[in-house]
């Protein structure tokens, strides 16, 4: 088991896997999301494109909702229909 010499960045990233660190990062993420949402309410959209996007919470809802819907639709509905074994065409 050879120890790989790591540069400062590699060492830093490895350290982030220590217990407790991932949770820390998650909390930083969620906090920044809240800040962004508040900013979104504060700063108005001068030029709405779609009509609906004049509403303050449009974009967060859009991003989250669409993201969830997309992943669900793709992985649970579409992929099961078109999934085949890797060597389906005999190319490999």
């Amino acid at each position, binding site marked *: *088991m*050879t120890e790989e010499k790591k540069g400062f960045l590699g060492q830093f990233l490895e350290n982030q896997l220590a217990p407790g660190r991932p949770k820390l990062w998650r909390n930083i993420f969620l906090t920044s999301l809240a800040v962004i949402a508040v*900013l979104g309410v504060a700063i108005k959209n001068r030029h709405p494109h779609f009509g609906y996007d004049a509403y303050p919470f449009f*974009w*967060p809802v859009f991003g989250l909702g669409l*993201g969830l819907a997309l992943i669900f639709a793709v992985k649970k509905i579409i992929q099961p229909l078109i999934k085949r074994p890797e060597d389906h065409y005999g190319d490999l």
Partner: protein
Amino acid sequence: MATSEFYHPSLAFLMMAAVLPFLPGNRRWKWLLLLPPLAAVYAAFTNSPGDHLTISWLGQTLKLGHVDALSQVFAQVFAVMSLAGLIFSLHVNDKGQHMAALLYVTGGFGCLMAGDYLTLFAFWELMSIGSTFLVMLNRTRESVLASFRYFLYHTAGGLLLLAGLLLRHKYTGSFDFGPIPPGTATCADWLILAGFCVNAAVVPLHAWLPDAYPRGTVTGSVFMCAYTTKTAVYVLARAFPGWDILAVAGTIMAVYGVVFASMENNARKILSYHIVSQVGYMVAGIGVGTAMTLNGASAHAYAHILYKGLLFMAAGCVLYSAGTQKLDELGGLASRLPWVMVCYMVAALSISGMPVFNGFVSKTMTIAGAAEDHRTWVALGLEVAAVGTFISVGLKLPYFAFWGGKKPDPERKLKPIPANMYVGMALLAVLCLTQGVYPEMLYKYLPYQEVVAEYHPWATWNVVQALMLLGFSGLAFYIMRRVIEPHKALNLDFDWFYRLIGRGVLWLICKPISAIDAVWTIVWDKVALRLLKLLAAFSAWFDRAAIDGVVDGSAYGVKGLGHLTALLQNGRLQHYLGLMVVLALLIFAFFWYGL
């Protein structure tokens, strides 16, 4: 010629490709590879607009050096990309791969500078050949088969283009390459459009892209992701701006690409589907056709080449180092390939449109332009695609490649990545960042300068909106990260239809046509061949008996006559004298008195 400077960027690439096989075997020739891209960068900044290099060939005027704002902005980014790509591939010893890349880039530049369809077609085919080899030279069974399919498909696309341009010549009498107003579409224009759409990977003609790009060489795919599709975007921008069908097709492409990218397991295949999606943005922009969306399409192409190249470079580094590009086999690599991860993230955030990176200043211009033009569905579709982009390329790929919930495994062997690959990635990453922070750098070269001032990417609302969109999409990913976990699978795409057609044609040739051929061969043998032999025998007899007889006969006859006449010279002086006097007097008398 001080006011009119022109240097065709293809020239050095072509010469390099021609000279390469003859250079000696040691490694020093690799440094020469950097000369053509440097020359091309210089040319891209200094070529003056106009029609240069018009040559006359077979009665046609070919314009090899058409330079204007649109071609210059593409030429710039092509040149920069060629430099980064060649730096990235300096470690490759296989001259064949370098030649293929050089020829490929030659074709790309040639298409940009083409002022007429014939030149365009020639360089189009050159690109197709170069890129075929970039896939084939990976030298695995999978890659060779993929390159073959790729070549067949692109040749078919080229034939569509050829048919279109010839038909167009018949209708309009010229080969000039310029904008075609949407209302005046003829059959020829549709054929040309189809040919361009093949290279632009417009759905449903796109399936060659995810089939071939993941199977190219590590360095080859980096080139391919930039040139084929962006050349197609350029030619679409030049010939078909404002065609509504492109707006629709582009939106479909954008969404289609991210849908498939979200379900794929192969890292470079995800990126390939992403090319389809991003090119969809550009095609939609061209379809809408306003000055702002055309600017947006150009800007997007510029930025896309840079960050897509970087994405493929980073994924290529992972493949080179870890030996696989399947996400389910990767993971836990962040601490062991930190800089690759950083470069990847720079590109990933660019492609997602995160402020500070160049994707932000280009993508949003297209969407804003579409919305300005009251194309609500186009703009909406592009926003949907933005969400999907961030989720699949910005989050899914790096998460499962570099982290994936796995700890770094010290037993896993990672090949050390050569320095030139890092340099290539760094070059592109720096450009992505600087263009994002200082968008003027990009906007200065856009073709429609008059509307550039109308768009302000760094307006506060734009930044906040982007952050909101991306942030909450990221939340969606975080919530669904188990669901989106990739597994080994082949997702059926339109290539199922292509293969069906291919098999059908093969069956058609094998069964009925070969049956007809068998019958024909029998007929030929029994009847025609016998007849031919008979005819030959007769001709030979005629030649010997008749013709030779006459010719030889006359020759011998004359010779015999000669012998006869020579008898007159019998050596007797008295006969000579007598003959002389008699003959002379006879002749004289004949003419004096007879006539």
